[in-house]
């Protein structure tokens, strides 16, 4: 297990390193002169050079890279060119929206998917089982923003129960903030739940066809006991893997849903910076998101190790 953890940690660091180089090269390589991008088409050569000097963009690439990555690990994401605000401060305040949204969306998705997927795996010939299969198939085809639009149409506009957008700060109006997040979370959770349902379903189907489940039943477990005591415990392994893979999708969904409901989260900030060509800010915040996803994947891998004795007790 020690070796397993070491290996996974090493891979995490390697992955972060590789991804950071990729992002850095993509922005420097594909984008050409960063200072020129930031200043736009009409900038004079002098202004571009001045900016390049100010940001150290005229230094060798290797130096710039290590300077940038070093700062990220120190928690310094740089400053906005236009407003001169520290990006780190901006990010922190915006994470107070994005993280609850993202995590609750995932939890809701799992809360839907595990029972629904399990039920439809075991009762594919019953009407409800078939209905779940159909609904998840349809749900996968619904873009998350359209789900958001439809939900706010129903609960916001038609019924007037919940806000269709906007944000009050947690400290200013806690319940108001919660109310603002309900519809975004439901949209995110429903759509994520639809695709997770399929994975849970196939994991459960797969596990329930295994010989050891048959053994469990041959030694006196009912179908339900075999499912709960043996099946789900084993299905947890493939499901954990899939959840890890879905994190990247989830981030995409979060970005979109923040836009639908005009929530001033992290993604809105990135979008604004993309529009404003704040290349360096985009580079840093994007890297932050990638580190987050990779960290979650690391956690999932370690969890897998704990769940599976074949991994845990391996050399």
């Amino acid at each position, binding site marked *: 297990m*020690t*070796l397993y953890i*070491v290996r996974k940690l090493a891979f995490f660091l390697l992955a972060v390193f590789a991804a950071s180089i990729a992002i850095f090269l993509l922005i420097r390589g594909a984008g050409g002169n960063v200072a020129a991008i930031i200043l736009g088409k009409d900038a004079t050569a002098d202004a571009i050079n001045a900016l390049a000097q100010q940001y150290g963009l005229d230094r060798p690439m290797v130096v710039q890279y290590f300077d940038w990555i070093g700062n990220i690990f120190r928690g310094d994401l740089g400053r906005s060119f236009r407003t001169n605000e520290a990006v780190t401060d901006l990010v922190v305040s915006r994470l107070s929206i994005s993280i609850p949204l993202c995590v609750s969306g995932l939890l809701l998705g799992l809360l839907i998917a595990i029972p629904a997927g399990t039920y439809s795996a075991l009762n594919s010939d019953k009407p409800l089982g078939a209905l779940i299969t159909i609904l998840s198939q349809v749900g996968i085809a619904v873009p998350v923003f359209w789900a958001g639009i439809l939900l706010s149409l129903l609960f916001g506009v038609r019924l007037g129960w919940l806000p269709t957008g906007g944000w009050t700060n947690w400290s200013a109006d806690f319940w108001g903030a919660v109310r603002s997040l309900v519809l975004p979370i439901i949209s995110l959770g429903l759509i994520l739940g639809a695709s997770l349902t399929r994975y849970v379903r196939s994991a459960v189907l797969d596990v329930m066809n295994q010989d050891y489940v048959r053994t469990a039943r041959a030694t006196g477990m009912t179908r339900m006991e075999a499912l709960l005591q043996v099946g789900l415990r084993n299905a947890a392994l493939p499901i954990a893997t899939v959840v890890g893979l879905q994190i990247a999708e989830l981030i995409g969904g979060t970005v979109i849903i923040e836009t639908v409901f005009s929530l001033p989260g992290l993604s809105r900030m990135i979008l604004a910076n993309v529009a404003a060509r704040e290349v360096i800010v985009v580079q840093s915040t994007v890297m932050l998101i990638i580190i987050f996803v990779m960290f979650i994947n690391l956690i999932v891998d370690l969890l897998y190790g704990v769940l599976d004795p074949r991994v845990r007790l391996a*050399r």
Partner: protein
Amino acid sequence: MTLSTRDPILAMQGVTQSYGLQRTSLFAPPSSFKVLDSIDFDVCAGEAVGLVGESGAGKTTLTRILIGMERPQQGRLIFEGNDVWSATPAERERFRRSVQMVLQNPRSSLDPRMRIGTALLEPMRSLRIEGDHIKRLHEVLEQVGLDKSALERFPHEFSGGQLQRIAIARALMPNPRVLVADEPVSALDVSIQAQVLNLLRDLVRDLNLGLVFIAHDLSVVAYTTSRVSVIAAGRIVEVGQPVELFTRPTAAATRNLVDAVLTVEAGLEGKAL
């Protein structure tokens, strides 16, 4: 018996093979494991020899070396008197044509997307063998007892026994001198096993083939071959005629294997267990 004029076509001499093991911990030195230890093994024309042993005894590695898939770390693989791994390209080509193999699972050993006719011609094309391929196809099909109509069909249209015949036919296409059969009947039904065993015996006799028959079941090997080597923990522990091995096993591994054989007679007499 042709034992007096022993002139092996294919032989392994003093072959030793070790594999590195995965480290047991981060700081442990890498260790290695001797899979084969000074193996001598050979087969002559018109002779069927057997190789038996439990799983993990080294049968697979021995087979891989015997057919030239793996290079021996120590010792030599000799074909028609030449060391295969230091032979001229022409000699190696001849080795590749002359030593063919039949694998355990017939359903897996034929590409499901390839017609039987194409599959049978594959060795000929790959080994660049000249001649009338169609004539050869018909010859070989007759040798294994299959109809010409098989050529246009796909593997899924055949039963396991028929597929094993097809796999044997493919191995015979390049007109080999040695046939290596790795557990050729263990994936087949009992009533089909005998068909394939009889076919192999006929081929040895009719084509003057050298047959190497690898299996875990001593009784099946004994029926098909005239000389059996017993392998255990990477060493050949005993060589002899099947009857001798059965009646007077000397090595412990042989005794285990003999003891493991169940027969209907012994069962009926209440002496089996």
